[in-house]
């Protein structure tokens, strides 16, 4: 556990030393809320059937989507970014000669980003409640917490897989490219997947982000309990159980390959 804290502490000191970046990130949350607020004005008064399962309000729908889609981006990008940074900054070799196992280095390098993403999501939702009348009065926070935990584990598997590509290819990781674009398009961030044609909905249900966003919306806006969220919980658990060990195994192979090719710190 001390090793994990060491990574969190390292990243906190590093990130907090860039003061303007911190302020800009908070400002960015506000502008994103403002954008969704005006967009939802366009749809005000309309009876949109596809939004009914989530309470019918587009602003609430898209804000929850925005708050938790960020976790997907963090998982997919932070792990590969930490490898890329290590290659470019030269810290990767220094880490790999320590008494710390590679999977721990990888996972611990991403924890601060998840903590920061959680803080930003809380700030984002608080700003939504305080400034834009976002209604979270029905929220079931236990359901939200369970979904959040599964969000991180399910997405991390894909993040580690993306990091494996960066370890070998250095740049141009196809996992990040494909999943990021597919999830944004078909995962139900901006619109419910029920508006998609049937054949595209099939693809949506293969993406973990679909279950995360749906589960989060149902827990936040409709107060779904753990038992009501069980289908989403089951699917995300399966994603986690399959993807995490496979991706860690692939990452170890990628490190072996980089050691064989002598490209650990090349970029």
């Amino acid at each position, binding site marked *: 556990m001390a090793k994990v804290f*060491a990574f969190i502490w*390292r990243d906190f*000191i590093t990130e907090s030393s860039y003061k303007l970046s911190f302020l800009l990130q908070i400002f960015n949350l506000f502008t994103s809320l403002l954008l969704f607020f005006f967009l939802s004005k366009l749809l005000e008064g309309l009876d949109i059937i596809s939004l009914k399962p989530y309470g019918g309000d587009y602003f609430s729908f898209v804000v929850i989507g925005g708050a938790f889609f960020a976790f997907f981006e963090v998982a997919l990008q932070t792990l590969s970014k930490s490898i890329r940074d290590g290659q470019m900054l030269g*810290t990767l070799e220094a880490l790999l*000669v*320590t008494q710390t196992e590679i999977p721990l280095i990888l996972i611990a390098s991403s924890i601060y980003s998840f903590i920061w993403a959680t803080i930003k999501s809380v700030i984002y939702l608080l700003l939504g409640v305080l400034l834009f009348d976002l209604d979270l009065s029905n929220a079931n926070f236990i359901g939200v917490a369970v979904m959040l935990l599964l969000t991180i584990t399910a997405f991390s598997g894909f993040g580690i897989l993306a990091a494996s590509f960066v370890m070998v290819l250095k740049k141009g990781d196809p996992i990040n490219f494909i999943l990021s674009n597919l999830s944004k398009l078909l995962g139900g961030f901006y619109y419910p997947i029920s508006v998609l044609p049937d054949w595209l909905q099939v693809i949506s249900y293969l993406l973990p982000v679909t279950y995360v966003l749906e589960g989060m919306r149902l827990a936040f806006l409709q107060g779904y309990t753990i038992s009501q969220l069980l289908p989403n919980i089951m699917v995300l658990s399966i994603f986690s159980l399959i993807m995490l060990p496979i991706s860690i195994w692939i990452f170890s192979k990628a490190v*072996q390959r980089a*050691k064989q090719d*002598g490209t650990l710190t090349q970029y």
Partner: protein
Amino acid sequence: MYSIEIQNLSKNFPQLKTYSDIVLHPFTKQETMALRNINLKIKQGELFGLLGTNGAGKTTLLKILCTLVLPSSGCALVQGLDVKQQAKHVKRLIGYVISDERSFYWRLTGKQNLLFFASLNNILADKVDYLLDSVGLTQFDANKLFKDYSTGMRKKLAIARGLLTDPEILIMDEPANGLDPLAAMRLQSLIREFLVEQQHKTVIMATHDLHQVEAICDRIAILDKGEVKASGKVGDLNLMEILSNG
């Protein structure tokens, strides 16, 4: 038993293919030879120098000993342990002094950097102050951001990091690179007097500086284009002749 034994060690790196090679020869593997048939034995408590020009294979050899690069053939034993098969155990025996200043976190202080790497090596924080003091970094220096360190201070911090686990073997890659003559001399005496004579460490040091090896090393090996041209005691070798013939 020797601290380090290297037997018939070779390393080839795959060459990056051009677009035309990918199309015309998709299955042909092109390789560059970095090390060829290296044989070396380094005794316990010895200060061993690897001398060679840029691209001679010094860093590749050191990285193989540190388990960061896998050999293509042959073997390297650290205290009798194979670097390829027993990498985890080998890492406990060695300290790698990476002279590359990019291997530290620039937004952290020197002490914070050392505390971070201490945690990853399961070392208690108390040891950090002792090590900083041992390499000649004051408390004032230790609390400065790494980005504000001079080259000499960075080298000292790299040595302190290499000593965190109190390793029996210290592997140093160009430790005095980029230092002014006075700072280089101070670093040399730190290596010779503190690490070898006081701490009884086995030190392997890669350098391209002839004067440095003459000044502090017990024995040396001269690497040229991936091969050992000569090895032995500094006084027994006519370094100038070997290098000019290389």
